[in-house]
């Protein structure tokens, strides 16, 4: 499976993601600087965590409007798989690839802590190695992960199984509506989530719960 990690200035979890993709899927991702207006031919584009453009104005707002995102939008329409984690998720909502928005955490503080995630949909390119309803330990590290969307949108997400991850067991760290931690688009080829599975894949991380997510990518390709 060929993957690429998209780099914007201010992105800072690209190495974590690179390490996870390389060690688990066995193939190293291309690192693509946003300035290159066209995305090389890959199966998966990953937008990692960080503070693109300082997250000034709104998280992900400025990166979402860069030329390379236009290209990703076009290719996603033709089926390119796109994964956005944390700031990547924010960029995907800001660019319209995913519905809704991510507001300031309800406690108004940045929060770095381990939460629990229920896999709500295990038929996606990022969850096919897990069981539906399976609960994973996974860290979060964000200040604006409070997912929100209007009522019809939420209903559509719920009805079509487009809520991929939900915070479990009262561990919702940010006040996200109906504990939504990660969603996908209608076609199922674009997934965004706030938590950091790339930081829960090896013994050093205290647990390897999130390894299967990256193993799923191999199957998907």
């Amino acid at each position, binding site marked *: 499976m060929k993957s690429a990690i998209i780099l914007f200035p201010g992105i800072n979890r690209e190495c974590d993601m690179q390490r996870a993709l390389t060690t688990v899927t066995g193939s190293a991702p291309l690192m693509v600087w946003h300035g290159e207006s066209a995305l090389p031919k890959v199966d998966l584009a990953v937008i990692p965590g960080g503070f693109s453009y300082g997250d000034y*104005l*709104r998280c992900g*707002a*400025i990166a979402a*409007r860069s030329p390379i995102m236009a290209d990703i939008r076009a290719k996603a329409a033709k089926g390119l798989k796109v994964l956005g984690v944390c700031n990547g998720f924010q960029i995907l*909502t*800001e660019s319209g690839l995913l*519905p*809704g*928005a991510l*507001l*300031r*955490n*309800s*406690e*108004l503080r940045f929060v770095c802590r381990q939460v629990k995630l229920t896999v709500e949909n295990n038929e996606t390119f990022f969850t096919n190695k897990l069981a539906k309803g399976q609960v994973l330990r996974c860290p979060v590290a964000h200040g604006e992960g*409070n997912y*929100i*969307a209007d009522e019809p949108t939420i209903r559509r997400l719920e009805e079509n199984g487009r809520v991929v991850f939900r915070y479990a067991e009262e561990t919702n760290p940010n*006040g996200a509506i109906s504990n939504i931690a990660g969603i996908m688009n209608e076609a199922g080829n674009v997934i965004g989530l706030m938590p950091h599975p790339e930081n829960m894949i090896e013994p050093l991380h205290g647990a390897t719960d999130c390894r299967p997510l990256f193993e799923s990518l191999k199957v998907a390709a």
Partner: protein
Amino acid sequence: MKAKITITLKKGILDPQGKAIEGALGALGFSGIESVRQGKYIELELAESDHDKAQSALRAMCEKLLANTVIENYAIELA
């Protein structure tokens, strides 16, 4: 010319920052505060001197970048 843009959360969208400020003001002993909402304020200096041209340029800026119309409203004021 100078433009002032205020960006506010849409009605019905929770504003925890506003709530926090409301709480803090209460704690400081300020009474009779019925609601607080926080938003953004952006000041721009434009070379454009034509009012209408500036107006429509600003509207475009808000739609394209400054406001996230999923959750925010914006108001433009031209000096």
